[in-house]
């Protein structure tokens, strides 16, 4: 905590970077921030600089050479994102223009920002706490509506407030233990054991509630893995494509972990989904067995939902039973090519099936709803006011707190240790929450948090 690391003490520099994504685009944003931001910017503007917080169209020069016409806004300290004087140039897009402007500003004394440095300054200038800074990273990386909401909530300080209140509850519990020692001869006698039990239980269940959001948080960050399995020609690829086509936004489409599967993230319903199409699996003689083997190895273990597909009820039964032997994930039985299925066929099935037609699009909505429901059942509904833990750092700190509290409760209930000795566990729990908020061993936390940011944020 004492040794301010090298990265943290370069606040005297004025830093610059392209803040928008690189590539072709109509506009790009160049952000310049630091004590000399205004004077450095002024060297490249012919007009007197604009009023603070008013955007003005300006020509940007490098010496005699005009670089661009840009919309320039000045944010005086502390009313800026970083808390330092900041100038933002909305330039024309593309690779060249913003880069030449950055180069010009660097030649006038600015320094290229390192990854995450703008956000880091915002934290160091007291504009954000660490959890909020993480939320900014999440917001930028958000690939789904729900991740965006979760990050916004965290940016608003929801998680910080929650943790602070739990920390105060723990300190309160410790105070009850101390009271017993401090006032041994009072009229009221000792604090009733039940009061301490209740306080400990209350905190324990709050910590548990937070921890129980970890799987949901993981799904929110990573997307729920939804694996489509079925015999060849069962219409898996058609279903995959139909689901992609239906979704509001295709965020990424990337090759799967092996060449044998396709993976795509879709944000169609409530939860972001990582749809995995095993359509490319090699088909052997003994193909069903082969399928079961490959898919279980690769995806079944991590699957959150399995979509078992088949064209008719007999093979659907077969595939469902095969899948249930190798995965604990909920299985949704999907009758593809529903337009071809007869009513009689449907009634033969022993479980609820979702008839879908990739061709006409019927049943896709129902399927997505069924997926959301299955995820709700698995991870719990997303409650608007309950913060969700989206990072391993959060999970580690809170499970430490939770396990320390458990050790306290155990020692306390069974009177294994004097209460004041057991209370050391409570203190450790407090420290671990404080560390999460940013109070302890700060430099350590900063480095961990900021190493995951990219330039310009």
């Amino acid at each position: 905590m004492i040794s301010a690391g090298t990265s943290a003490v370069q606040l005297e520099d004025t830093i610059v970077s392209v803040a928008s994504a690189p590539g072709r685009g109509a506009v790009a944003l160049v952000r310049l921030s630091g004590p000399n931001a205004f004077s450095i910017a002024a060297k490249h503007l012919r007009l007197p600089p604009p009023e603070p917080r008013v955007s003005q169209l300006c020509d940007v020069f490098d010496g005699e050479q005009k670089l661009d016409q840009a919309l320039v806004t000045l944010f005086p300290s502390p009313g800026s994102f970083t808390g330092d004087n900041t100038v933002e140039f909305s330039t024309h897009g593309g690779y060249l223009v913003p880069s030449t402007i950055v180069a010009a500003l660097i030649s006038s004394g600015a320094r290229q920002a390192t990854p995450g440095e703008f956000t880091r300054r915002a934290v160091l200038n007291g504009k954000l706490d660490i959890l909020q800074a993480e939320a900014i990273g999440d917001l930028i990386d958000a690939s789904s509506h729900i991740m965006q909401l979760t990050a916004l909530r965290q940016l608003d300080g929801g998680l910080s407030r929650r943790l602070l209140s739990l920390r105060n509850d723990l300190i309160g519990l410790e105070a009850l233990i101390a009271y017993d020692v401090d006032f041994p001869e009072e009229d009221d006698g000792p604090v009733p054991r039940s009061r301490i039990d209740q306080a400990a239980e209350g905190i324990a269940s709050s910590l548990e509630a937070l921890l129980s959001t970890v799987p949901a948080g993981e799904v929110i960050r990573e997307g729920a893995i939804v694996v489509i399995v079925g015999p060849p020609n069962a219409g898996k690829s058609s279903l995959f494509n139909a689901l992609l086509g239906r979704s509001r936004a295709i965020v990424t489409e990337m090759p799967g972990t092996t060449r044998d599967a396709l993976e795509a993230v879709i944000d169609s319903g409530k939860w972001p989904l990582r749809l995995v199409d095993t359509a490319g699996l090699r088909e052997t003689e003994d193909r069903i067995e082969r399928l079961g083997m490959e898919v279980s190895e690769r995806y079944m273990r991590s699957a959150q939902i399995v979509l078992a597909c088949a064209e008719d009820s007999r093979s659907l039964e077969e595939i469902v039973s095969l899948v249930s032997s190798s995965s604990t994930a909920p299985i949704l039985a999907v009758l593809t090519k529903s337009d071809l299925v007869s009513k009689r066929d449907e009634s033969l099935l022993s479980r609820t099936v979702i008839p879908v037609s990739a061709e006409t699009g019927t049943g896709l909505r129902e399927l997505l709803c069924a997926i959301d429901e299955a995820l709700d059942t698995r991870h719990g509904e997303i409650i608007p006011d309950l913060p969700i833990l989206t990072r391993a750092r959060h999970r580690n700190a809170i499970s430490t707190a939770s396990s320390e509290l458990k050790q306290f409760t155990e020692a306390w209930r069974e009177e294994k240790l004097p209460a004041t000795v057991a209370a050391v566990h409570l203190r450790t729990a407090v420290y671990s929450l404080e560390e999460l908020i940013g109070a302890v061993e700060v430099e350590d936390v900063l480095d961990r948090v900021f190493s995951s940011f990219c330039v310009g944020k």
Partner: protein
Amino acid sequence: MSQLPGFETEFDVVVIGAGHAGTEAAVAAARLGARVGLITSALETIGQMSCNPAIGGVAKGTVVREVDALGGIMGRATDLAMIQFRMLNRSKGPAVWSPRAQCDRGLYRRAVRSLLEQHTQLQTVQGTVARLLLTPDERRVLGVETIEGRCFGAKSVVITTGTFLRGRIHIGTETRIPGGRAGETATTHLAEQLEQAGLTVARFKTGTPPRIDGRSVDYSALEIQESEIEQFDYSWSHFWGAKRRQGSSIRHPAQMPCWITYLEAEGKKIIKDNIAKSAMYGGAISSRGPRYCPSVEDKIVKFPDAERHQIFLEPEGHDTTELYVNGLSTSLPVAVQLEILRSVRGLTNVRMNRAGYAIEYDYYPPTQLDPSLQVKVIPGLYFAGQINGTTGYEEAAGQGLVAGLNAALSIQRKQPIVLGRETSYIGVLVDDLVTRGVDEPYRLFTSRSEFRLTVRQDNALRRLGHIGIRLGIYSELEDSAIKARLEHEDAALRLAETSSIRPDQAAQILSGAGSAPLSHAVRIVEVARRQEIALDGLLRAVGLGADLDSEALVTVDLEIKYAGYFERERAQAERMRRMGDFSLDPDLEYGDMRSLSLEARQKLSNLKPHSLAQASRIPGVSPSDLQNLVIEIERRRRLAVTH
């Protein structure tokens, strides 16, 4: 410098007031070789216990042992005057044992006076200090002048005037008497001068209960509480001569019991009916009193549902039958006090010797002091005790010790002693005072300390002895006594770790405690880790450790049993020490540190903390403020290097 005429004596350190703070300050300074003048209004009341006749209690008992470890007199005087002893919290494990002793008031006073007189460097003076003699710029003390016109030179002055600065006694709403203690006059001149010097002053109140004639008490109606004296001495000074080791404790006076009775419905009604006549509830006093030492009026108003309130009748000493009515602190009119007393079982025909009263007095918010207890704006002037807004004899003694040591060290141009929070309750006390200030009379609790497992009553010598040795405050005899005690601890640990115990040797102890028998011989330390098994019994069972101090064995036993937990606290202490090593320049300008919250900037500017650790404890300075402060300082430091 001293052009002022007629210093009767040139002292190094003058201590004003000879209560629990003043006497410790005087002794501490004398131990450091200073010539000390201890000035008090009445030599007969040196070491007077103004309120209850008890020394020690939770956290306080530990302070007594800390004061003793650093050469103070409170523990020694208590050992000589102890007429009832209890170890509070005995059922909650030795880590929180809290010794408390009832004392014979007269014996205590006389013990204190004679202990003072053992220091040839120390002169007691009867007189009331009228004013401090300061340099013309009022930024340095030169000495003091008494109302009798006696002038004494001093390089440092310690003020420990308790409740005497503009003290005012209240009994009911009608009776107001200026006074520092019942029957003794208050001091106003000095108060005026301090205020003129620019010190902020505030008022607190406290109270004391009536005292009764023991011959008028029906003891048959009371519960008796006997002394549980075993071999307890507060002071380690008796360790020498090997008396303790052979089991012969210092001879305490004969023990006397306390008596327990209750304030019940009838008494509660009397108080309720007369509440408007109370000085505290009738509007005569508006200043704050301690919540945790409430008047009986407070108890009735704030806890109307409590069925009854406990009252302890505590003996005042062997030379009198007078009893102190603990639990009945009040400022009601005398007639009502008597009525209440007579409603109490066992006191139907009681005679009241002295009435209870409330007292209002000046204190100086202690954030005006630096961590050596020196007044920031007047170097050489130190405050200790109730003048800093504390309550309690032990709290006063701890501060007196620190102020006395520092008053003498500053003359020798040596670094002041600042005890860390992790070293002692005294460290917690002083740090809380100068960092957080007080909003009610300050009393120590274990909950104020982050280190209540490692800072215990049994290990004060281990924690502080090395400091005393470094300061050179011990006599040769004391020096070797301290070393001997610590060697006993080392030896006990060595025995536990290296000797083993056979199943047959341990059988009786283990079965007696309901603990599982051993299957084969193991090292003693393994068995001592069990909660229910004490180390000394194990050692005795194998015929070892008979020559070791029993208290040293308790210390080692705790260290074995709770090693993992103690380790956690010590790791935290280490972290705090590192923060303490990050010192902050008192001239640091916080006003323009934009990254800090406005509140933090104001608080830091006002208090000028001396280290990051201290800054971290200022209310209103958040963890992120602290983090930004480190960066700001590091940035400035680097700038200074490059420019």
